[in-house]
Structures are given as structure tokens and as C-alpha cells.
């Protein structure tokens, strides 16, 4: 028997518009809805039929804007294309950028943790803070725990 194969897309949503603080936060549900809309919008019912059964958003981090999307390997390019063609979430514009495409959940998790560290390093150099016990360290620990908790 051959196991069922997936692709794991690690996608970063780069915000363009500044969200007002009182607006509802983006969740993985929002991303999933936007993704579904984009697949149907660009690839029609056939496209949604090909990827809809397996498409799930496994993780979304509002702080760094990264999410992990699972899709069956056969038509993952449709899902990937639909991710690229997303222009906005909840009416706010974003640039989706695929950071990594992984064949197993493990590699997707590792790439996500790596990416989190890079983002935090960038923020730190921007605000010139490097104390070991600051909020970023706490965030890294918690996000790492969250990412590692993702089950297939």
C-alpha cells in the first residue's frame, strides 16, 4: 500500500494596509475562507473539487502572519496558485508569499520555526532590543510549542 501524500505550504501574509486596532483579528478560518473563495474564483468548481477535499489550514500565527496549509499532493499547484492570487483577507490587502513547500509535516514545522526566528531577529534589529527575557523570547517559545503540537 502507498500512503496518502500531502503537500504542506508555509505561507507568510505580508500586510499592506494598516489594520485598525478594533478590527477582528485574522484567524485560520479567515484564511481558509479566502483560500476557498480564491480557488473557486480562479479555478472554478472543478478546481475546488480537486483540492477542496483535502485543503485545511493547520496553523495561523497573527503576529508573524504565517500559516501552514495542507493539500493533497496531486493538485497542490492549484491550491498554491490560488494562494498566490489571494489579494485581500477581510478586505485588507496582503501579499501572500510562499516560504516553503514541504512533503512532510515535520519539514513544514521546522521551516515555520526557522521563519519565526528570522522574523523575530528582523524585529529585534529594527527596534534594537536584545535582552534575553523580552517578549520576543516568550513569543518564540510559545509559537514553537504551538507549531510542534500540530498533528497530521
Amino acid at each position, binding site marked *: 500500500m502507498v500512503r496518502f501524500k500531502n503537500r504542506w505550504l508555509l505561507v507568510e501574509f505580508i500586510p499592506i494596509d494598516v489594520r485598525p486596532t478594533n478590527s477582528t483579528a485574522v484567524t485560520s478560518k479567515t484564511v481558509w475562507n479566502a483560500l476557498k473563495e480564491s480557488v473557486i474564483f480562479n479555478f472554478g468548481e472543478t478546481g475546488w473539487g480537486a483540492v477542496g477535499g483535502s485543503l485545511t489550514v493547520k496553523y495561523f500565527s497573527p503576529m508573524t502572519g504565517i500559516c501552514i496549509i495542507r493539500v493533497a499532493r496531486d493538485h497542490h499547484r492549484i491550491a498554491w496558485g490560488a494562494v498566490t492570487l489571494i489579494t485581500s483577507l477581510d478586505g485588507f490587502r496582503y501579499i501572500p*508569499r510562499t516560504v516553503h513547500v514541504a512533503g512532510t509535516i515535520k519539514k513544514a514545522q521546522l521551516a515555520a520555526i526557522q521563519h519565526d526566528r528570522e522574523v523575530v531577529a528582523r524585529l529585534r534589529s529594527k527596534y534594537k532590543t536584545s535582552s534575553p527575557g523580552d517578549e520576543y523570547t516568550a513569543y518564540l517559545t510559545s509559537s514553537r510549542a504551538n507549531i510542534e503540537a500540530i498533528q497530521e
Partner: protein
Amino acid sequence: MPFFDLSLIFEPAKQKGKQPNEISSPERHSLEARIDALVHLGYTVIAINHVVQSKFQQPAPDFGLRKRDGVIILRRLTIVLDEASEKGFGLTNNNASSLASYDIISLLPTTQTSFSLACLTHSMPGPLTAHIISLDLSSQPRLPFYLKHTLIRTAIRNGAVFEIPYAPALSPNDEHKRRNWWANAREVARVTHGKSILLSGGGQTIADLRAPLDVANVATLLGIAQNLARDALSTTPKSLVLRAQTRKTYRAVLSEPKLMLPSSTQRFFLGLDTNRYVNCRASGDGSHVYGRTSRSSHFAAAYRK
């Protein structure tokens, strides 16, 4: 492999009381912001695309952009060819000095006549070569002319590439634009067999930018093979930029190779020392010889290009 985006659109706004060869500060801010976004997305070579309608008159101003480490910013000129420009659109020797300020010249034909002009006449090597043939993929459901195979083949042989800008595929409010783009981009991919294609941005705002591998994936949905889609953002533009540099050199010579006579050991490996060469062959070790010859002929072929 570095990634290239050879189309960061710069269309100077027409305002009263503003010199046409001046850049206003909002325009510069927009360029800077878009370059920052492109760098973040992973591009390292960016061409600012100055688009002019029907006729080239004067070069774009000095953009005065901030220097960035490890990022190369080029200047590109695109002339949109319409019926008015069939008699001449400024790519003449009189303008050669002002055209020399651009790294790449490209043409965007919108009529049959100007398309064959772009493919046949202006792709010939010389100081005024237009290396990129861009097409308006999104304004009409079908291209205004048939992409004849002979024209395409001549243009590609002369070293021109065909451009597919991806920004119209993202236009959220205009479904006709998107549909037209998918149909016409497929057509371009079909006639070129996916080779000699350049994928580039072509957007006016930050929201129209996408990361290189995302764009390559969208291109595979157009029926371009994976490796060729990736090449369209890296190797093709790289060789294009190199080729475009030959516009500024005498007879397209890029460097002057020096002849160095090999020492006796090297002569042996090159297979020039016939006595030893025979011995070497007899011992069944001719790999060096064949390796060398094939590589040198490869260089010769590259030179002829």
C-alpha cells in the same frame, strides 16, 4: 540563483507646470517602497521600466534612489507601438546617446505591422536592439494579431525574449482583465514552447507584487514546464541582461580573451601532444581529451551568440 524582476513600472504622471524629465517625490516614494517590497520577496535584480506611448522623445530622469547592498537596479525603456508609431518611434541613431542611459530597451507592439517590425528589424544585434518584446495580454480577449511562428522564431534566434507580466492576473476588480490574461498568456506560452519567456511584475502598486517561486508556480498553470518557469525568472533574464550590455560595446564584444600557451603537462591533457596522446588513448583514458574539446566548442558556440 538570483531572481530578476525586470518590470517595475514607472509612468511619469502628467502634471501642469512639471518638467517631464523630473521625478516628483511621491513617485520616488512609490518606487522606493516597491523596491523594498521586491527585495523582501527575494528579488535581487530589479529594472525600473519607463513606459512611453508611441514615440521615444527624451530619457527618464535620474531616479535618485537609495543604494542597497546586494541589489542591482537597472533602467529599462518600453515603447508602446501603435499605428502612429509605425513610421518611426525614436529608435534611431540620432537618439543613440540618450538611449544609452537605458540598460534594456523593449517594445510593446499593438498592431500587426509593428509586431513584425519588433520581431524582424529591431531584434537584430546592434546599439539599438530591443531585447524584450512585451505584449498587452489583458486588454483584449484575444491578441490583436496572430503570433506567426516565423516571426517568433526569428526574434528568438536574434536573442529577443517575450515577456509575460503577471500583475493583470491579480487585478481583483476586473474579471475581464484576468480572463484575457489567462487566455493570452497561454497563447504566448504555446507559441514559444515555454522557452525565451520572461516573467515579470508590471504592476503599479505594492499589492501587485509576488514572490518569484509563487510566480513560477502560476506559470506552470499556464502550461509551462516547471524548470522553464523557474528559468523565466532567473536564467533567461540573466542572459538577457548580459546580452543587453553588448549594446554598448564595439561589435558586441564583451571581453578580450588572452591567448596563453599551455605548458607541456597541460598540452598532454589538452591532447595537443600527439605522442603522449596516443599512449593515453591506448591506456583507455581519453576522457580528458573529449571533455576539453566539447567544452571549447561550447565556448565557441556561446561566442557566436
